[in-house]
């Protein structure tokens, strides 16, 4: 099946058009955050303080790239394990995040929150950091520079490939995919 081109940020309508198993190519601006940045963002939410980035409609990519070599926009930049962000993801969705990109299993709480807030979880190919870095045309730190590779980066992406794992309807590619090929 041909991949669908989608433009970041996403509307509710965009989210509802995505189904588990869809291959997509993401274009536009996305933001990065890993464990440490999530912790800081959720602390601000708890205190009712403004966030350093507006999450409305945004994609969050779970990645900690290698340092860029001279001439590179970014170093190797594949997804990290999403489960470590499970504790924070429902809060991110409450604050407007529409999509997150990582790899690996999500908790039931996250899957329920995706349905409730109309969000979607996608996986990029884990370990394909060199290939994925070519789809990132520009990278700049927009918050928490002290976190180094874990700082929040603003990325401009072109045809960044990902696969929908958990959609807003409660479908789960990890469960369905394995069922289809188990013997």
């Amino acid at each position: 099946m041909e991949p669908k081109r989608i433009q970041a940020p996403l509307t509710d309508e965009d989210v509802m058009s995505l189904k588990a198993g869809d291959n997509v190519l993401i274009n536009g601006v996305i933001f990065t955050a890993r464990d440490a940045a999530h912790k800081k963002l959720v602390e601000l939410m708890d205190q009712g303080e403004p966030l350093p980035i507006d999450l409305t409609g945004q994609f969050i990519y779970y990645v900690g790239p290698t340092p860029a070599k001279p001439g590179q926009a970014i170093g190797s930049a594949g997804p990290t394990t999403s489960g470590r962000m499970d504790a924070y993801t429902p809060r991110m969705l409450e604050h407007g995040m529409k999509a997150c990109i990582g790899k690996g299993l999500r908790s039931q709480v996250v899957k329920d929150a995706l349905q409730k807030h109309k969000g979607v979880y996608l996986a990029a190919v884990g370990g394909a950091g060199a290939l994925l870095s070519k789809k990132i045309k520009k990278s700049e730190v927009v918050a928490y520079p002290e976190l180094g590779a874990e700082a929040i980066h603003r990325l401009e992406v072109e045809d960044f490939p990902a696969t929908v794992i958990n959609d807003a309807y409660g479908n789960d590619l990890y469960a369905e995919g394995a069922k289809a090929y188990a013997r």
Partner: protein
Amino acid sequence: MRELAASTISDHVAEMCQEANIYLGEDVFKALRKSLETEESPTGKEVLKQLIENAEIARNEQTPICQDTGFAIFFVEWGHEVHLTGGTLEEAINAGVRRGYEEGYLRKSVVTDPLYDRKNTGDNTPAVIYTDLVPGDRVKISFAPKGGGSENMSTVKMLKPSDGEAGVIDFVVNHVKAAGPNPCPPIVVGVGIGGTFDKVAVQAKKALFRPVGEPNPDSRFAELEKTILGKINDLGVGPQGFGGRTFALAVHIETYPSHIASMAAAVNINCHAARHLERII
């Protein structure tokens, strides 16, 4: 007595850190290409193609295969007849890691204390080093940058001797099933059997240093490797967990003699970027 300068060790280590992270080994390439022929899922095939393309980009552009350039793990076989000069082995290896990770634009992924500060050491040291003394006047250094995502999906269990072969199979297959897509499949599964609680984990790690797909020299364990691999791939998890026939590229078993009361078992998982390298100095 052969004299060997610590700086020589550091030079080799610095090169190995970069080489292993940039050039995927031919053993892994071969295993990926072979699985592309047998994979039945179109999405699975697409993932395998992306992984092969990724390794080619890394090689051509001298950029890391994966952004997780790992915890630096070393197994050193040190010949009795070699005398190290100008520093300790530990210092020499760490100096090489420091230089290799900086010069190679590799990610520094090590934090100081694991619970409280978690402050990045800034140079990917310290390395994890295992040393064996062996006869002769050569030094063999084996290096693997070990990613955190797959390492987190590893475990040890003290089985009972009465659990037997079926117990080992169940333990490994059930554990790998629970790990699912998290360790970046297609994975390489390192299995340790025997020894103590600590030794069995080292054996499982050592199993990941074997060229991918090379069987255990003992035909009984080679057969067991095949059986477990078949059961793992029959789970249908497939490349990246998207569904398919290639969940694992290989299962490697390393054993050690066991206490009469015990049958320790360990699983250490590697992602498809099964990076490992050795040099004889």
